[in-house]
């Protein structure tokens, strides 16, 4: 379990990739964004965001889904071997989202998971992750409260041993960001003071650990993880060619 200070966009995404590739124990990382930034889903086109202000900071995530304006939010990543989660992707979202519903209830934020028999659209209907909730998303009466996305990979180490790995991203809105005013926010229900944020961290950690049948303990990144994060930040997430690849 890692609780980081808010970081820049490329660094944030690079650390998560390093944890996906190198972490030897299931790792929950909580962080924020400074400066605030817009992250694109892995397959999105940067040209679809030409209307945003010129000084907008962009990054292309490794995970799927739509774009997110990361302002005042609680962001978390979970990097772990796939066997800790249901193999069915939708079922893995259900497990994690139900834990987050319980964590939010502990701090006085009621929300629920969208249950729908409706077939999702063949392609995402909007460029913004939070615009159109689909089955499994966490919502309040005001809209979608949590953005989630995953990357799944089978990684082989130098000894030839393979691991199925999952990187799960979660973005929990604390205060409504300017580019996506249609989102729900924790601030609709409780004021996100420092104490509230700490309570929310604790509740989130406890509930995620419970559903994963793991014991949460504070940790630090290894030197190898730090080194890989710096490299990946420089060569991939901070590289304009990666952002403009689509």
């Amino acid at each position: 379990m890692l609780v980081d200070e808010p970081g820049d966009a490329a660094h944030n995404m690079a650390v998560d990739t390093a944890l996906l590739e190198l972490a030897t124990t299931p790792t929950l990382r909580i962080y924020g964004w400074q400066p605030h930034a817009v992250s694109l889903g892995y397959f999105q086109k940067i040209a679809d965001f030409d209307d945003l202000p010129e000084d907008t900071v962009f990054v292309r995530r490794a995970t799927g889904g739509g774009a997110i304006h990361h302002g005042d939010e609680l962001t978390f990543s979970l990097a772990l071997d796939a066997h800790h989660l249901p193999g069915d992707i939708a079922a893995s979202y259900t497990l994690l989202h139900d834990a987050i519903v319980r964590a939010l209830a502990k701090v006085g934020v009621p929300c629920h998971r969208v249950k729908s028999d409706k077939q999702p659209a063949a392609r995402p209907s909007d460029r913004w992750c939070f615009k159109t909730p689909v089955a499994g998303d966490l919502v309040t009466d005001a809209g979608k409260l949590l953005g989630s996305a995953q990357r799944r990979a089978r990684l082989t180490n130098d000894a030839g041993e393979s691991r199925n790995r999952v990187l799960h991203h979660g973005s929990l809105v604390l205060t409504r960001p300017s580019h996506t005013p249609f989102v729900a926010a924790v601030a609709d229900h409780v004021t996100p003071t420092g104490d509230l944020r700490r309570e929310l961290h604790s509740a989130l950690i406890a509930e995620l650990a419970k559903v994963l049948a793991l014991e949460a303990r504070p940790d630090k990144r290894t030197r190898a993880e730090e080194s890989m994060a710096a490299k990946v930040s420089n060569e991939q997430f901070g590289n304009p060619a990666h952002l403009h690849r689509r």
Partner: protein
Amino acid sequence: MRPDDLKFQKSHEWCKVEGDTATIGISDYAVSHLSDLVFLDLPDVGSTVTAGESFGEIESVKAVSNLYSPVTGEVIESNADLGDNLEWLSEEPFGKAWMVKVKISATAPDLMDGAAYDAHCKAEG
């Protein structure tokens, strides 16, 4: 119906070898676990793929998964129509939803036959 002459990887890609050409796709088990598919990225014809390494990526609702090649070689054909018809992966994962054809220079050493693959899927849950 799954043909009998396919080989599988643990990461759920299948390949059918005919002469020096391998046709590659993903299994019905993989498709069912990915849920609703929204985007597919395949390599260009003329590019090289390597056994055990990623040759493409597929996005289901909010999850990007790598596709791993069972063989090493040059891509000689890519199923260009599949990206706009991802429902084919549910309808005919071993037929019209093939992804690439590769001129083989080497094959991954740990490919499984259908029975071994079924046991692997059962163990994975």
